[in-house]
């Protein structure tokens, strides 16, 4: 089977998954007793006549039976009409897409950070199994996951912004994506919407520096969500691989430990970490709701959090669908990456 037909099959599967997700969110939302779905479409405090309400209800097909409503709902989704968000004062899809780059930048930085820290830590823990370094790595990563992310975020802000500032030390920004002055005096022309990429492409180094500094604390806070998982999986998978027969043969060749780990073990051990990177992204996007709120990061998660507080169900549902789509796509990409790492994988 060729790569193309594999991707085609996976995309078909993606359609099914999204259908399932949309069904769940739709029926949970509309099926909730005592909640009139119409409420989502009218501005609170703006009085409307009963006639106007009734005609709005007809227009939105809210007077039809639930299954039929769902068909209308899906048809609208496919047309790109995801509803109108009161919170963003914008169509839902537009609002999400506008904030997508900020979230992507944050999530990608967090994934990179957690793998860059987690993979070496997991390897060291495996090689020093049950010795001091292993115990230290495990304690730190378990402690990391046991604290709520918003709390860690606030601690990071306190230490690196507030206390360091009090001591006259250099600080790291604790809110937003970019320094206000830089954004005013030397703005960039958005291309990808990713500040780091755009500023590099246009050669605005000061902008790049400010964006990078703003990214440090939130992406670190977010990376802590998946760091423990990466460490644990890398350690377990490395231990498993080191028990394999081909490692014994490699040792019998007289290869030094470094070569055995880097050449013979790592590529075999990394696959489970890749797998979780897919699922982790989902967890990270959930975590982004919290982290973006704590760090006033202007991304999708921040908007979704406001939507929740605002009872803006159309927005929240849209966000859920959007995240589900992203997860399925990322999982597809990860599956394709296997073939790069492991020659046995063919599609």
């Amino acid at each position, binding site marked *: 089977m060729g790569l193309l037909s594999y991707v085609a099959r996976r995309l078909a599967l993606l359609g099914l998954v999204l259908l399932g997700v949309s069904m769940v969110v739709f029926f949970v939302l509309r099926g909730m007793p005592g909640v009139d779905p119409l409420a989502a479409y009218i501005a609170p405090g703006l009085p409307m006549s009963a006639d106007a309400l009734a005609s709005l209800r007809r227009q939105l097909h809210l007077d039809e039976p639930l299954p039929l409503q769902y068909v209308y709902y899906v048809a609208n989704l496919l047309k790109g009409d995801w509803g109108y968000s009161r919170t963003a004062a914008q169509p839902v899809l537009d609002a999400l897409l506008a904030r997508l780059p900020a979230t992507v930048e944050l999530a990608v930085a967090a994934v990179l950070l957690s793998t860059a820290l987690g993979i070496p830590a997991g390897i060291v823990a495996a090689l020093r199994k049950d010795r001091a370094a292993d115990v230290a790595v495990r304690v730190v990563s378990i402690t990391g996951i046991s604290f709520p992310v918003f709390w860690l975020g606030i601690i990071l802000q306190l230490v690196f912004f507030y206390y360091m500032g009090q001591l006259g030390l250099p600080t790291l920004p604790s809110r937003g994506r970019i320094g206000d002055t830089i954004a005013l005096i030397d703005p960039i022309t958005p291309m990808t919407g990713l500040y780091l990429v755009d500023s590099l492409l246009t050669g605005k180094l000061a902008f790049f520096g400010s964006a990078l500094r703003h990214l440090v604390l939130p992406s670190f806070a977010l990376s802590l969500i998946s760091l423990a998982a990466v460490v644990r999986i890398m350690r377990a998978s490395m231990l498993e691989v080191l028990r*394999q*027969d*081909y490692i*014994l*043969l*490699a*040792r*019998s*060749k*007289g*290869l*030094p430990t470094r*070569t055995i780990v880097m*050449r*013979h073990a790592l*590529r*075999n051990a990394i696959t489970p970490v890749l797998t979780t990177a897919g699922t982790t992204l989902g967890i990270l996007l959930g975590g982004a709701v919290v982290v973006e709120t704590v760090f006033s990061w202007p991304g999708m998660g921040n908007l979704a959090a406001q939507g929740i507080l605002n009872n803006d169900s159309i927005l929240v549902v849209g966000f859920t669908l959007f995240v589900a789509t992203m997860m399925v796509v990322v999982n597809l990409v990860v599956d394709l990456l296997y073939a790069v*790492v*492991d*020659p*046995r994988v063919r599609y």
Partner: protein
Amino acid sequence: MTSATRRSGAAATAVPVLEISDLSVELSIGGRWIQALDRVGLTIQRGEVLGLVGESGSGKSLTALSIAGLLPGNARVAGGSIRLNGEEVLGKSEQALNRLRARSVALVFQNPTSYLNPVLTVGAQIAEIFELNPELLEAAGGRTRRREAWRQSIEALRLVRIPDPERVVERYPFELSGGMQQRVVIAMALVRQPDLVIADEITTALDVTVQAQILSLLAELRRTVRLTLLLITHDMGIVAQLADRVVVMYSGSVVESSDVRTLFKSPRHPYSKALLETVPTIDGGRTVFRPIRGAMPALTDPPAGCRFHPRCPDAFDQCSRRKPERLALDPGRVVACHLYEGGAVSE
């Protein structure tokens, strides 16, 4: 080792390639140290093939792994000595052991599929041996070391009679049959021009016809590259076909060692006799197997006295009381059995 001693062959006065004496190994099982090898001794002269036989679990692999310092993590050497070309192996640093593995001792294991690294090409797994032994590379003649190592890897594949070695060298192990994979592992052993090759049940995992091919390859290599071989097997047929001398192990100790012809003609130890009877013999046009009744005792619960006594047809009162000492019966023949104490018994 000078070239003079290399050529002096199996003369009894030459320093043996391998001399193991009184090797005891313990295993940590369930928090206790259990004796797994009990004063094992064997000697191999240059150019000789020594068959090491015994049922599953008799300690053949542990003996082999000790030679290369590759005992499992829960094993320890409790005494004895292993001399390679006269030099003590036990107590060597990991670095010194790596040098020894890289050059002097090469292992070939049972199941080539699990002993080859699935994500590295055949060529990469052979050529890396030259990284450790650059002196093995022939005068490069303008070629880079890398390319010369690759060229010699192809030659090694040719030596073990792999058809189309230029193509196979680029292949991944899973693209080859089991027999071809085992030839690759043998090629890895040979490129080192090692003093000693240890072959641990290298045909057990293969089909019968492929087994025969590998065995005839070994027979051929004996002549062409003058292998010194420790041939581990539980198949007396293989011993008869390839070995010069044979060491019989039972439950962690050597019970008899002898040259092959003598052993087959007149086995002394009751276990050797029983083992020879498990060789399928043609009887009136039928193949007959006579397996040894009973099972080998568990390491954790060995019987007192001679460990074979619960299964021995010739056992008498002494046998369950005292461990039999090793007795040199004829020149070159050692037996550990109470039947022969005083050297009184003959055929």
